[in-house]
């Protein structure tokens, strides 16, 4: 693993999932190659005065957590400055796509927990709840349908939207201060509710989910299933869902996934790393 694998277009873009995967793997295992890959990639995309040299918002949002990691590891102010600028930009206008929200909310939670007064927790909870429930109780299970007209959201498979949401929820919960328990608990309850709504749609033969979730005849989706495995593993480790019941499901899914697919692009590689990191963290307990 090296920085070149993480960078896109000579540093104008970045594989956010792969970057996050490296950060998580280093935190879980202490293996330096992951730390070095992440820091070397960030060194390219963050200027000396803390400007994030990426061309689009989604890319920027996907770096947030890694910027804080870089500041933690190196003490260099440019990373904190970049994180602060990103936070301010996101605060001014939360990203308008569903995908953008899922990328940015965990970082906003982490930043505000570490450097802010945690004022954003209430808004973060409200955003997640609005995404899942729409305007009324009758509009439940909206969460795997696109809620914006953006091509990014419309083109993604329902399972991928579900996976991003669950992963974002778990990542956000992990970064929150549990002592603001009402907000932490609201998201924890939401996470459990969504998992319980999703699982009945798992195909009992393939042990995986179809791309659209509700239609089992549809083809299974590689990336979407990987995201669900990650969310389940993380949910178990954080104590959000019962280990006895849900760990087995995640192991079955991962095993079935490996029989069918390979991590043949950066995003899948990134999620595979994040899953490995969760396994390593879980084995420490």
């Amino acid at each position: 693993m090296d920085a070149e694998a993480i960078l896109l277009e000579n540093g104008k873009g970045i594989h956010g999932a792969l970057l996050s995967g490296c950060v998580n793997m280093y935190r879980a295992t202490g293996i330096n190659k992951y730390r070095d890959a992440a820091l070397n990639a960030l060194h390219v995309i963050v200027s000396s005065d803390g400007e994030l040299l990426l061309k689009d918002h989604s890319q920027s949002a996907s770096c947030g957590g890694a910027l804080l990691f870089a500041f933690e590891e190196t003490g260099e102010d440019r990373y904190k400055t970049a994180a602060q600028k990103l936070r301010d930009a996101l605060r001014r206008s939360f990203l308008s796509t569903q995908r953008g929200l899922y990328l940015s909310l965990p970082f906003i939670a982490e930043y505000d927990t570490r450097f802010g007064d945690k004022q954003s927790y209430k808004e973060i909870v409200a955003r997640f709840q609005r995404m899942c429930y729409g305007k009324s109780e009758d509009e439940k299970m909206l969460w795997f349908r696109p809620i914006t007209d953006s091509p990014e959201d419309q083109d993604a498979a329902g399972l991928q939207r579900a996976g991003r949401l669950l992963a974002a929820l778990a990542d956000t919960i992990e970064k929150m201060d549990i002592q603001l328990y009402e907000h932490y608990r609201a998201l924890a309850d939401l996470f459990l509710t969504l998992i319980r709504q999703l699982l009945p749609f798992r195909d009992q033969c393939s042990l995986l989910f179809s791309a659209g979730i509700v239609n089992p005849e549809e083809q299974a989706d590689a990336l979407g299933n990987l995201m669900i495995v990650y969310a389940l593993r993380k949910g178990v480790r954080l104590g959000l869902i019962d280990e006895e019941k849900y760990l087995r499901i995640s192991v079955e899914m991962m095993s079935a996934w490996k029989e069918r697919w390979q991590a043949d692009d950066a995003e899948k590689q990134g999620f595979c790393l994040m899953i490995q990191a969760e396994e390593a963290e879980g084995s420490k307990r």
Partner: protein
Amino acid sequence: MKILFVSARSCTVLMDPEGDYHAKTPRRLLLNGAALRDENRSVFSVFGLWPDTDYSLETWIDGKKESGITFRTEKEVCTLNVKRFGAAGDGEKDDTNAIQAAILSCPPGGRVLIPAGDYFTGPLFLKSHITLEFKPGAVLYLKTERAEFPVLPGMTRTTDEEGEYLLGSWEGNPLDSFASFLNGIGVEDVKIIGEGVLDGNGQKGDWWVNPKIKRIAYRPRMFYLRDCKNIAVQGLTVRNSPAWNLHPTFSENLTFLNMRVEAPAVSPNTDGFDPESCRHVRMYGTEFSVGDDCIALKAGKIYMGMKYHVPCEDIEIAWCRMLDGHGGVTVGSEMSGGVRNVRVHHCVMRGNDRGLRIKTRRGRGKYGVVDDIVFSDVHMEKVKVPLVVNAMYFCDPDGHSEYVQSREKQPADDTTPTVGSIRFERVRAEGCQACAAYILGLPERPVREIQLKDCAFSFDPQAMPMAPAMAENVEKCLNRGVIARFADRLALENVTMENVQGPRIDGEYIQTVSDQ
């Protein structure tokens, strides 16, 4: 004279209801006609009695009998001495298992006896229908390595995932906490008596280092009761707690008598007594000298308040002495289930930062109603501010935020707490510093009523200016009267203020003010 409590081996008596911690006049005690001792406390206990036996107790003043009373001790099935279970009491061997085995083996109506000795132990768990007695000279020392403590998980989902089972608690939230020195989970009818000592060893180990950070779990207390009823604690000394001292939660019919609760002034968060969402609680004849509030009445933070809204109510605190400590009797800041019907009387407070202290803030919720709090016949010496009501207390990670601290009217909604009626009657406070009272309500939900009647305040001529309340933008002051912001009614009747500087009442946004 009135019998307050009887066990198989002891009793507690109210000797002088008009005294405070000390009786107005010392008495000589006679037990069954024989001289027992001279006693100068209003509430006292007698130990070393025999089960199922009639006793007579008399008080004498200046060679003349003043009063007498008879009582019968309770029956006792048997006594289990922890040394027979293998406890060494030598201060070195780990006696946890031996003491725990004795407790678990004790039959209903039996007594677990801890004789004199130094016992090194971890957390212990109580069982229903027993008495636990600590003989004079029995000192239990709590372990200091946190890795050796069991954890009480804060929240566990029910198997059907529809509900939750709450166990551990920290500062008003269901969070993972280390098991405390003595734990009662769902137990009833337990008496913990004696003249022994529980030493939490807080000054050893790392409990008081970075105290607010969760390391594995949150800090243990000396007593933790959850869902208990009919519990009495008599006579013990507890000291050097890792965190709060006595912490009963969601429990009822609790009696605490003649205890001593001690922690160094610099020890962090060593509140003396924190009943949380409890009802029918009596605290009599106890002395506190701790590193935080002596007594703090609590009812959880907003999650617990909104979901369960179990108030702390019917609380009586009398004939106690509160020395030093931040507050003599505090309400909050965790009060989201409400705190009401509180009577504090015949107590003495000395050297506290604040006498009665109400702490709340936006975000505590609609069930967070503090009401019907009465202080009467209380003597305060060198208490810097006798009465503080602070609805903008800067606690919790967002405590300094604009949301909590704004003096502008905010929407009154489900997150807004309420302060109702607070009364001081026959309170005498000498050596005050900042002011007699500081009231800071919320503009959108003013404090309903503050009444001071037949009270006397005098100020310390050597005092230095200080901020009377812990909120943003509270200016330091010195020897001021009543300073009030955002209240519906402020009524003073027969209140004297000696050496006060400035007006007796400095009020803004107060609907009705009277000063007779």
